[in-house]
């Protein structure tokens, strides 16, 4: 009996081997190669030269990189707060029994998530073009403004538009997660509350929200990593005035693949890795604290 189980485990090993080989070639090798590159000076045309920590010391004094971290965090906050609020409100509404066409609305709200961020970026940049864009034409048409607003000439408006793109793309996804969370809350609790004469508002604040907290935390944490890697949509919208919409990954892309400074680009990549690691550790700590509370 014992003998046969040992033999069987060999097959399990064979099953996982393809994954590890693929990961080794396409995952681990580039990761290690980037680390090697970050200690070099290399433009892709000449041979790499070892420069030690020079790229990292340059990075610490790089005000543009620091600014890009700030931009990324600002855009992330601007997009995540309204995104979660909107998703939660819609989820609670669409979870009500009396709403008709729930499935239709769920699908419609999820649609933006299927569109690629590049397409959304192009779409928004055309919509917000200050001379030919539909947004200005609409606002002028209904008489809200007299002259067209040059959206991308103001750092904060530009950031708001980028945040808007992200929000629009992900609120549907978060809404679905919230709906799943809502459906897992036992009906008995609601029924008991109703019997006790609680109002809809009381139920929402005192039952739904507290029980939804783990789901809320989950979406918040998963959005951190995605938010810090913000790239394609803002790339389509440009750097913004005074580099106000230049995100960390955009800066990495421009350094490595526009200026062909591969080695410095690799150092930036590792810096981004460390930043995301720190934020992830903080969020893990948070979720552990949450479990202890529970």
């Amino acid at each position, binding site marked *: 009996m014992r003998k046969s189980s040992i033999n069987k485990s060999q097959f399990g090993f064979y099953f996982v081997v393809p994954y590890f080989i693929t990961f080794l070639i396409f995952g681990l090798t580039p990761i290690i190669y980037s680390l090697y590159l970050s200690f070099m000076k290399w*433009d*892709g*045309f*000449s041979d790499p030269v070892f420069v030690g920590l020079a790229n990292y010391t*340059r990075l610490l004094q*790089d*005000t*543009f990189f620091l600014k890009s971290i700030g931009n990324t965090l600002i855009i992330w906050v601007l997009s995540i707060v309204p995104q979660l609020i909107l998703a939660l409100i819609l989820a609670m509404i669409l979870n009500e029994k009396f709403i008709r066409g729930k499935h239709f609305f769920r699908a419609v709200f999820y649609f933006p998530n299927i569109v690629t961020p590049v397409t959304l970026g192009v779409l928004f940049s*055309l919509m917000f*073009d200050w*001379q*030919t864009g539909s947004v200005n034409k609409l606002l002028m048409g209904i008489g809200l403004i007299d002259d067209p607003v*040059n959206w991308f*000439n103001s750092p904060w408006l530009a950031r708001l538009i980028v945040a808007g793109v992200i929000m629009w793309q992900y609120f549907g996804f978060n809404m679905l997660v919230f709906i799943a969370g809502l459906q897992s809350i036992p009906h008995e609790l609601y029924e008991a509350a109703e019997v006790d004469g609680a109002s809809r508002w009381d139920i929402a604040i005192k039952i739904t929200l507290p029980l939804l907290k783990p789901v809320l935390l989950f979406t918040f944490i998963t959005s951190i990593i995605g938010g810090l890697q913000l790239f394609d949509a803002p790339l389509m919208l440009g*750097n913004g*005035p*005074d580099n106000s919409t230049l995100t960390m990954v955009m800066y990495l892309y421009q*350094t490595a*693949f526009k*200026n*062909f*400074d591969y080695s410095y680009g690799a150092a930036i990549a590792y810096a981004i890795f460390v930043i995301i690691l720190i934020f992830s550790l903080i969020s893990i700590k948070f979720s552990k604290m949450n479990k202890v509370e529970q």
Partner: protein
Amino acid sequence: MKKWLSILFAAVLILSLFAGCSNSEKSTSSKDKKSDNKTAQKVEGKLTIWTFFGQVKDMAAEFEKKYPDAKVEVKIFPGDQYQTKLLNVLQSGKGVPDIFDLERGYIDKFINSKYVVNLSDMGAEDLVKDYVPYVQALGRDAKGDVRAISDHSSPGGFWYIKENAKKYLGTDNPDEISAMVDSYDKIIELGKKVNKESNGKVHLISHFGDIYNIEAYNTKPWVKDGKLTIDPAWKENYKVQQEIFNNDVDAKLEFFSAGWGNAINDGSVVLTAMPAWASFMVDNKDDKAKDKFGVAATPKGFYMGGTYRSIYEKSENKDLAYKFIEFIAGKEWQQHNLEATGNMPGLLTVYKDNLETFKSPMFGDQNILKPYYETVKDIPGLKPDKYGEEVLSKWRKVAGQGIKDKDDINNVIEKFKKEVKNTFPELNVD
């Protein structure tokens, strides 16, 4: 799949038909040019070309027509990932094409690398001796050797709708218009007038950024001996651009933006500064742009872009590849290209041959080569360097923002230096 096969089959048939034609042509002329024929017979083999530019297919077809024993495979990679793809194969040394196209914007990095053949050693100095000075200079490496050759020049001019010009400028004669806008002061004054007369609906030029395009290669190189040098002309230009912006001489439509393209066709901008190759921006459905446009000279000659061709250092087909370069640098192809696409030649001799005769339907009776020739021959020939394009784009960005924000030039220069220092820490920017 079947459809593709049938298209391929048809293409092979057509090509073999052409091949047949040129074979017989050659055999009739073989008596006159015996030695030529001897070299022509040697032209055989298969070439691979990588490009981002669709018209290279026609180039290959014409080459195959001339040398029926040669086959050219063209692989087109549209979009801005082309150079990354190219660099990847060059680094790995596998699957590298014999010839690859390089765009003006990044040519310097490639021609100063170990990956390209020194064309001067193969006799290319002869090919470019009658070239437009700036075109041949852009294909030279830091030492001055030819490493890449283009088959065209990309001069720009002020395009205008004739009817529109008559209405706002009082004439549609290209020479008269060229004289009306031969200095920035004149442009500003004329622009104010157009703006006033049209009640702000029509503007003389598209964008103050046109000045960057015109001045880009008429100023001193940005970097000399590892030091950033800001040509004093840029300070002057900044003032000019401020005047243009503040007085609504421009329509504030950035180059190649959505509104910019519309303005060429609807006439809300009188003079659009754009390169000769950009005729695809004109709405010419059902020939509606026929005899509609004119082109005048800008205050200084300018060019925009350019596609160059290099041979891979380790290519096994260097001789055939060189034959191809020789072909595209020759009169025959450049004349054909001018007639077929309207792309301006790289050879001054082709310019001169067509100066009085070349007409384009869109421009009616105008000899459009004239304004281009007058300005293109005087554009300074400068070798490309690692910094030029990148630093220029930073200046465009920072100065452009400064003009919109009505910022002081000294602040703009400080911000600009900071950006340059950040991207190129090795440069001395003080």
